[in-house]
């Protein structure tokens, strides 16, 4: 059984069909790429999977359960976490707080015990702190834990977003242009890092990315969107040699 699949996923904004009859099949532990020109409907597809937009028609099935039209926070709880194309950190808060917040959903203390700080609450608070610090270490931001997150350089903010998403204990991690704004060296490191976390946390990863070196380097399969329509899918080498894709997106060398 696929971890996630979408069936004829379609969304219309007024007269514009942003995504049209998109079928995706994503299996456990795969790293999947979603590519295509700007405005092709990639982010919109992510927004439908995560419940930000309700599709006009079609379904999203996660672990055999139909999650179409569910609320975003419910979908996160089922195990889908994401990052955003235009970074959405909790700006005024510290690096550590950003990650701590993502633990709230599974914290499991009621309001009263959180206020009066019962021993069981304090124990959980400590566990959450340690888990968050471990995630920050994993992305190399542990020594910046008290910085206000907007003061970080771009690349670090992107890594913080990934750490924050991981703190929700996802099964499927969805990354929207994680290498945007990174230099080639950082992009290569990121590639390595994505593979590492996939193995370490037993994740499945779906990512939108424009850096072809990154996409071709780590994705096992790739879907290509153009004007909201899937024009190809396959392994990196199949995609690189696909005539339609070359015309629509990769360009003719």
């Amino acid at each position, binding site marked *: 059984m696929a971890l996630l699949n979408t069936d004829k996923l379609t969304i219309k904004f007024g007269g514009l069909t942003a995504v049209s009859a998109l079928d995706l099949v994503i299996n456990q532990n795969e790293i999947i790429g979603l590519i295509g020109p700007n405005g092709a409907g990639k982010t919109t597809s992510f927004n439908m999977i995560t419940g930000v937009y309700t599709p006009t028609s079609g379904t999203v099935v996660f672990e055999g359960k139909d999650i179409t039209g569910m609320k*975003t926070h419910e979908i996160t709880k089922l195990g889908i976490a994401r990052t955003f194309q235009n970074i959405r950190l909790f700006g005024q808060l510290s690096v550590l707080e950003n990650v701590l917040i993502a633990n709230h959903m599974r914290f499991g203390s009621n309001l009263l015990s959180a206020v009066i700080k019962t021993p069981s609450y304090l124990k959980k608070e400590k566990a959450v702190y340690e888990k968050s610090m471990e995630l920050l270490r994993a992305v190399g931001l542990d020594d910046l834990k008290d910085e206000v997150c907007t003061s970080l350089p771009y690349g670090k903010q992107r890594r913080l977003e990934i750490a924050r998403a991981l703190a929700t204990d996802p099964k499927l991690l969805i990354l929207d242009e994680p290498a945007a704004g990174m230099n080639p060296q950082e992009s290569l490191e990121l590639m390595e890092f994505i593979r590492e976390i996939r193995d370490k946390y037993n994740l499945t990863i779906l990512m939108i990315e424009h850096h072809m070196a990154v996409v071709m380097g780590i994705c096992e399969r790739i879907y290509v969107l153009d004007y909201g329509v899937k024009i190809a899918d396959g392994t990196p080498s199949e995609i690189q040699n696909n005539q339609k894709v070359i015309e629509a997106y990769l360009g003719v060398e």
Partner: protein
Amino acid sequence: MKREKVIQSLISIAAVIILLVILNKVLTPFQARIFNLGGIYIILAISMNLINGFVGLFSLGHAGFMAVGAYTSALLTMSREAKEMNFFLEPIVPWLLDVQLPFPIAIIIGGLMAALAAALIGAPVLRLNDDYLAIATLGFSEIIRVIFTNTQSLTNGALGLKGLPYIGVTDSPKEAIWWIWGLVIITIVFMVLLINSTYGRAFKAIREDEIAAEAMGINLFKHKMMAFIIGSFFAGIGGALLGHYMNTIDPLLFRYLLTFNIILIVVLGGIGSITSSVISAIVVTIAQELLRVLDGKMQIGSLIINGVPGTRMVVFSALLMLVILFYQRGLMGTNEFSWSWFKKLPFKTKKAKIS
């Protein structure tokens, strides 16, 4: 580390209590009244700051929740005779006539009624986004006022209620200091514990970015409801205290101007900081008292200006606009009082270097 924090907090509370003892000795009854009003405004400002500052909801309903708290507590504490005297146009509903509860229980019920009102109104309005939320809560607040003006046999309508028992049992502002400031301490401690918990972090996340907060699994509606209900509970308590403090309440007291007054305190201090609400509430209360001269007759050289009532509110509104234009983060932004401030003082730093 944790122990150190607990000890520091206990020292702070002890220091405040000692301060209260001293103030109780040195303040004149008039000064004590102003000091008490400052305390009431602290409770009101903190409760608004939870809703508007920490969760970032643009709610303008505070006066409505205060009215609910004030009327509830007033009706529950007034004696049968006092009620019969007030309700001369139309007698009070019989089931309320003989109810007379001790003051502390009555204000808690006042808070609970305000919380209940928040739960009822919150369910529809907290699903709205910011601008609509502001309009809907403002509307709610005005509707409460209109209802209270027209439920003659329950609230005595436009005539209002006179002769509310004063705070405490002895009718003295000095005894009231203990009641009011005791509640101030409880409110502050509660809010600090709440804000520094996983729920407080969730609230701030909603303020910073709703879309990201929801993507992190935070149920927006549920958490907004929580903050709205808790904030309104304390608004109800503050409203009840204000009623007893003023001895007289009527629907006009709870106009949007009252909400505006509290917004002024919260914004001047700094949205999203408990410490700044405390300082700002005291400064604004005292300043409004001192600036009362502006409302009276003034003589500058040979120029005599006849007082225009409301001048001081104009001054305060102008001040608020200046703060919003040039100093948006208020007195101290989202910063809180912290013992580490003392560690930053020069003499401490030197000591640290030696060791």
